């Protein structure tokens, strides 16, 4: 049964809310879809609306928001392209952030995870699944329109190159947004994580004005969230700090907030 919770509004998105639990910050997204839960996440009612727990240990995007990501986030009524949607854990939350008037085109290559993504799509009216290879964007260009943003979580050595390919084809020219969850351990072992991050930032900065990248420690080892916007560096409403407990030193969320893997 759904419990009732008290949630604070969050600066990232009108459909994102947060709640301080001790030293941890919980994130919740207002659901677009109907139950059952996608991956066993908690559902809760706040006022007349239903929210789903968006946990940093399950989703790199949630980890980045907790780690003070100032870059672009999906906003209501936008169209986004999601590369590497897998079974739809993060994709369902991105769809939540886009709201009922938004559209999420979720691309996944392997059929078995895609079967589960399709199940989620049946219950999420704004999630449109595409069985296709993100390396071959022409393959799904007959279904995907120009989008406002691209979120990529592909964990491949050429992940940044394939995001750039997709951006050139599908991203709208003015203020198009790109967010990449970078797994540096999939990009080769001869360079360290910071070197991979610098190379990826350099490749993306040719296309975008980058927001400050965030490291996803301690939730994900040697992962980063990088991204930015065409023509403008940050969200139109500008960065606002995430709510945190009074008396804590501001600007160092990684040190002042302690997390445990549950």
């Amino acid at each position, binding site marked *: 049964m759904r419990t009732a919770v008290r949630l604070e509004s969050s600066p990232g998105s009108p459909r994102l809310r947060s709640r301080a639990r001790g030293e941890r910050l919980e994130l919740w997204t207002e659901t677009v879809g109907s139950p059952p839960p996608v991956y066993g996440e908690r559902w809760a009612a706040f006022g007349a609306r239903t929210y789903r727990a968006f946990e940093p240990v399950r989703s790199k995007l949630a980890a980045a928001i907790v780690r003070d990501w100032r870059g672009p986030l999906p906003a209501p009524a936008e169209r986004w392209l999601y590369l590497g949607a897998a079974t739809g854990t993060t994709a369902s939350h991105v769809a939540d952030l886009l709201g009922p008037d938004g559209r999420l085109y979720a691309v996944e290559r392997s059929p078995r995870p895609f079967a589960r993504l*399709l199940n989620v799509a*049946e219950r999420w009216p704004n999630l449109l699944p*595409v*069985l296709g290879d993100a390396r071959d964007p022409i393959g799904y260009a007959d279904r995907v*329109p120009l989008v406002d943003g691209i979120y990529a979580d592909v964990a491949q050595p050429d992940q940044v190159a394939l995001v750039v390919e997709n951006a*050139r084809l599908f991203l709208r020219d003015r203020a198009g947004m790109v967010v990449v969850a970078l797994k540096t351990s999939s990009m080769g072992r001869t360079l360290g994580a910071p070197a991979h991050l610098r190379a990826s930032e350099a490749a993306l900065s040719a296309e975008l004005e980058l927001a400050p990248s965030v490291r996803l420690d301690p939730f994900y080892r040697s992962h980063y969230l990088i991204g930015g916007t065409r023509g403008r560096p940050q969200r139109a409403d500008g960065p606002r700090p995430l709510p945190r407990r009074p008396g804590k030193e501001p600007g160092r969320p990684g040190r002042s907030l302690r997390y445990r893997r549950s």
Partner: protein
Amino acid sequence: MRATLVVAHAGSVYVLSPGTPPRGFELAKGRTGGPTAQGGLPPAALDALRNADPGAPIVVCGQELLTVVASRLARPVGLADRTAWHVALGALPAPEPRAERAAMLARARADLDAALRSPEELLVSLAREEQRFGRSEGREERAAEAFVAPVGTVLADLDRRWRQVRERLTEHHAELDRLLEAEARRSLPNLSALVGPRTAARLAAAAGGLAPLARMSASRLQLLGTRRRPSPERGPRYGAIYLADTVDAVPDDRRAAFARSLAALAAIAVRADVLTHRDLSATLVRRRDLRRERLLRRGR
């Protein structure tokens, strides 16, 4: 450069001429796939292309559509590069949300069905199902052993009926096994002869398909299907090959060595099955048995 762009998108073919609004021509409803699969272009789209500005070149998005257009049109046509694609996508009208969703879901279901239909995917599906089923069956058996019902009570009645259900599950498992073994013998004949069809199927499932399996070294094959390390100090060991019936017949202290040899032969068998399609099974089985005999002699 001004060009007339042709693009197929969301079930329609669009003709985008410079200076005029985009015109869309619906492709046959209820079908999936590109325009060639749908009996060519709609006649109205062809007319629009014939009447297009002769001064602007015609550029078509996608090789498949290009073939269709070029075969029906007297003028030379070009293939769109990425920039032309981007321009074409930007000029399209926004799709009607409900129709778009219905079409995307239908296409996704059809694509998934086609992707899972191949013999390779069938083998992987069966192997995973069999493994999952074996685990849940074992759990059920252990739970049943621990359950004691006093004679003549409701519990005893429940227990009896639950035993009937378990018997049906066992039948289902046997059926699954038969299908799996037949499928493995068909897709991986050499490997099935060498390590047994069920182990062969488990290897394919752990590798995620036949092509990745054929690219693996013997050492990778030996560890496929391992679920955890026996202890923090020791490496993983109990993979699909170690748990094969042929290894089971070897004494404990010789099993690891035999598994290693078997993995080396398995690598040869997989390549023959997937790449060259030769029948090496007799040779491989002979080498396997020879190796086992030597191991047993040296061990005593």
